[in-house]
């Protein structure tokens, strides 16, 4: 008998590689034994690090068989994940969330703003949207230069997208000196058909407030424990939305109250 193994089950996946590509930033390649469905950009998976933790990570790339993730060491879970090498097994649950759930018009031009490890889902977004002829300019801001890695190298499908960098320690000379928000102020956002931002809540809050009339899309982070809309830990304040089933991408107007009331800053 073959029972449907649903998308919320934990399925085995083999580590193909897991390497540090910038300070505390890893690229993890997994080969799942079965894949429930084709992931969309901004879909995420819960990565089960056996007996340690289960961590939500957005999909950074997918080649039809292997999944790539970009993650930053934050606490015990990500630290333990970083110790996994070739051929070790983890579990994956997903793809979760609605993904990007935006229907951009063909051949439009979009601005994507990423703060820090918020860069994770962007390579797969660029790759997928390329198929609709959509042009993405990427503004990526980080605190210190050693967090930067060469996106074109690790994700060749990004070649063709303009990448603008901003470092807060100002050590990267070919980019802006300052936060992503500082850099944003130098860009003519009106020339884009749409804007998507992802990064720390503090950054998203400013973007939503400053560009409110453009109603940008933003990808949020909340505590995700179950990934299937049951446990309630991922709720978006002052809304009827759950990040894990309705997100992680929202329009600013849907979540502005959440950002206003959020003091968390990571």
């Amino acid at each position, binding site marked *: 008998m073959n029972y449907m193994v649903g998308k919320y089950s934990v399925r085995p996946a083999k580590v193909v590689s897991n390497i540090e590509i910038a300070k505390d930033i890893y690229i993890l390649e997994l080969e799942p034994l079965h894949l429930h469905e084709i992931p969309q950009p901004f879909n995420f998976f819960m990565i089960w690090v056996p007996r340690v933790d289960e961590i939500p990570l957005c999909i950074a790339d997918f080649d039809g068989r292997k999944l790539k993730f970009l993650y930053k060491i934050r606490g015990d879970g990500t630290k333990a994940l970083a110790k996994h090498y070739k051929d070790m097994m983890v579990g994956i649950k997903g793809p979760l969330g609605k993904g990007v759930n935006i229907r951009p018009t063909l051949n439009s031009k979009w601005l994507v703003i990423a703060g820090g490890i918020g860069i994770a889902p962007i390579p797969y977004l660029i790759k997928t949207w390329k198929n609709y002829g959509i042009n993405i300019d990427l503004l990526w801001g980080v605190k210190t230069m050693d967090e930067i890695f060469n996106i074109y190298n690790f994700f060749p499908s990004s070649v063709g997208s303009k990448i603008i960098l901003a470092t807060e320690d100002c050590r990267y000379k070919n980019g802006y000196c300052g936060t992503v928000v500082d850099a944003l102020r130098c860009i003519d956002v009106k020339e884009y058909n749409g804007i998507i931002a992802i990064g720390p809540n503090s950054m998203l809050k400013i973007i939503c407030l400053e560009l409110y009339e453009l109603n940008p899309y933003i990808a949020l982070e909340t505590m995700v424990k179950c990934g299937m809309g*049951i*446990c309630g830990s991922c709720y978006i304040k002052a809304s009827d939305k759950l990040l894990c089933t309705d997100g992680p991408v929202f329009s600013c107007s849907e979540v502005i109250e959440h950002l206003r009331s959020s003091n968390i800053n990571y």
Partner: protein
Amino acid sequence: MNLEISIAGIKLRHPLMNASGILGYAREHILKLIRYGVAAIVTKTITPKPKRGYDPPILIELPNGGLINAVGLENPGKEAIPELVNEAKRHYMPILVSIGGVNEQEFIEVASVANDAGADAIEINLSCPHTKGYGIEIGTDPHNVYNVVKSVASVVSIPIIAKLGLSDKVVEAAGKAIEAGAKALTLINTIKSLYIDVYTLKPVLTNIFGGLSGPPIHPIAVRVVYEVYKEFQPEIIGCGGISSWIDAAEFIIAGARALQIGTALRGGSQNVIVSILEGLRNWMLIHGFRDIREAIGISVRG
């Protein structure tokens, strides 16, 4: 066709509510549950103090189509009750506050807050199978069930519903709960289970053991409802593995007046409740039931 029903004196638009533990501990959750179309809100089980719960993994789907969970009764503690009740009232929604504790005193503490906050009823969780001290240790002993229900009944004026899990003496425990003053029974909770990953050779849930819910437990739950109904004809809320109108109808003809839905609400689909109600209406039509009450327990009597 009339789907209205009253349970423990509470009037419901239709028999479907969420099961405890499906959202239900934040104001936002209540909004979401209303969107799903429930006729009443059941809160997450609330304990006197906030509880952090277990670290993930806390909830996974199994190859057999069920879920296994060990959330660890994460909840904000009794102080959150008034806000939850108010939010429900703002939307004219009946709200049942599920309460948990490790001893009679703790149950009383939470029950009093719910009572004073104006909740419509209290559901006493006597059956959580995976959080040590809370639940199943109490629920398997009919004597303990009697004592907890009795002591809660002595301090509150709103109706009490006792939620029991599968146990050897569940029928006897049901009888004791009624005797002690429960106006209705919720049957059943999840069943203690285990899922081990054969690739990493490790249990997947952080807590190792968890409670099994969803379609796998449905025929067991229907059996418990039938046995308890046959013995005492109390007011019963059927719970366990409802995912279609057929599962719901089966509970009703086994003796349930109202129903709770947990696992089937996963994934955030907005039409689970709607399609169950639609199915129930068609089914009533086929049988010529003009009122859902005509169907309650009909397979037991018939």
